[in-house]
């Protein structure tokens, strides 16, 4: 992967709550390359989700930087290619970062099709017919072509999450962020969502995944990050992390979850 271009570079990221008494992130640095599939594991409260949510600024980090495509998106302004200092529009950058949530967060007042076409129509000014054609093709890819006109409440959890994934894909993001995408699902529905994610990884999509699914992490992850106490404790290939863990905390964690 070393030859691949750098997509996101995180440097010394900190996120403090309650005036600094709670340190959710305490100096995290990492680089995500194009085509990378990074899986973040760790115990609850280790800062995994906070880290992921800082990548697209759903959480404003207390300090540190997130450089996406060469632009530090934690700042209010940046210097453009002509050397001018211009105002940073975070919405523009979020468009290139798809996000999938634990609780799906589909828009309940819209059909599946409208959920998917809203952002392309409003943000990318795509015309309705084109957006719907694209949405239907994506639904077909995840086996939900017959649910286009359903409302989210009519779907099972697994179906909802598959819709959430293709909704994010409608914007043709450069990276997909997954925040515990299977944690709110019934066990028999976890597989169908993981399968969609694995297929996505095979297409070369850059992915950052926070999950408790260790089997999936081992199979699909190209790189594993183990976090604890708001820090990256250990990172490496799945073989290194699962086969030959170094730190006692990782060994202890793996003993409990495997």
């Amino acid at each position, binding site marked *: 992967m070393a030859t691949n271009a750098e997509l996101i570079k995180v440097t010394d990221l900190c996120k403090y709550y309650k005036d600094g008494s709670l340190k959710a992130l305490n100096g995290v640095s990492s680089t995500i390359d194009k085509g990378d599939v990074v899986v973040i594991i760790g115990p609850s409260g280790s800062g995994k989700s906070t880290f992921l949510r800082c990548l697209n600024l759903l959480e404003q980090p207390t300090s540190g930087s997130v450089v996406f495509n060469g632009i530090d998106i934690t700042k209010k302004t940046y210097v453009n290619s002509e050397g001018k200092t211009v105002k940073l529009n975070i919405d523009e950058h979020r468009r290139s970062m798809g996000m999938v949530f634990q*609780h799906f*967060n589909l828009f*309940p007042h819209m059909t599946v099709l409208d959920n998917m076409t*809203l952002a392309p129509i409003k*943000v990318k000014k795509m015309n309705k017919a084109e957006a719907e054609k694209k949405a239907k093709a994506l639904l077909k890819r995840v086996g939900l072509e017959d649910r286009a006109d359903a409302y989210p409440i009519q779907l099972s959890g697994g179906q909802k999450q598959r819709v959430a994934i293709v909704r994010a894909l409608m914007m043709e993001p450069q990276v997909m962020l997954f925040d515990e995408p299977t944690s709110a699902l019934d066990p028999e529905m976890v597989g169908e969502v993981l399968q969609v994610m694995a297929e996505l990884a095979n297409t070369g999509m850059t992915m950052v995944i926070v999950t408790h699914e260790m089997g999936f992490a081992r199979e699909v992850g190209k790189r594993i990050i183990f976090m604890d106490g708001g820090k990256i404790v250990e990172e490496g290939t799945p073989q290194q992390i699962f086969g030959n863990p170094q730190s006692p905390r990782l060994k202890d964690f793996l003993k409990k979850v495997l």
Partner: protein
Amino acid sequence: MLSSAGFAKTWQYIQLFKEGLICTLSLSALTVVFGFILALIIALVRLSKVKPFDWLATAYVEVFRATPMLVQLFIVYYVIFANATLPTFKLFGFIRFERFLPGVVALSMNSGAYLSEIIRAGIQSIDVGQTEASRSLGLTGVQTMKNIILPQAIKNILPAIANEFVTIIKESSICYTIGVQEIMYAVNATKGATYRIAEPLIIATLVYFCLTFPTSKIIAFFERRMSRGDKR
């Protein structure tokens, strides 16, 4: 007290009640529209967390909720509009605009204060995940509010808004004190002409009931239709 002769006398002035009905309806409809717009602005200002504006909006809401409607109406009519020269044409040929407008303003300002709290609660009741999902798709804050939050919030608070509309129809009766020719004004005029009070009041009661009861039913119908997405 009540007599058929009394009703017969009152009936001669039924035209006043018809006009009163039109006036009450116009007054209430305009109040709902302007009150809602005002309420939406106040609610969004309060949620924006821009300190001075937030403080002003909060003060506005608290003052209007803590003082009687009658006092607000008199201040608007006798103080704020005291030196304003309003055009003196007649709406629908009988509603005196220079009295009608202050009535609409006072009712809207009052209703806006109450509705803003309802809207604010409705907006806050929407799961923050909805905003996060929308923003993560690249929609702006305004687009998120307009397409995601408000449609859900308004659906949730529709019963409360309907209730407010019914309240406005009833409260608009207070405008007879500044000479707006709504239903209670018709009661008073009929009383002066016939020396009957019970019969005009009975008619007014019936008119008000026939206005508010179907209104709440109609809104309940639309509420059911809008909740399609909630059912399997």
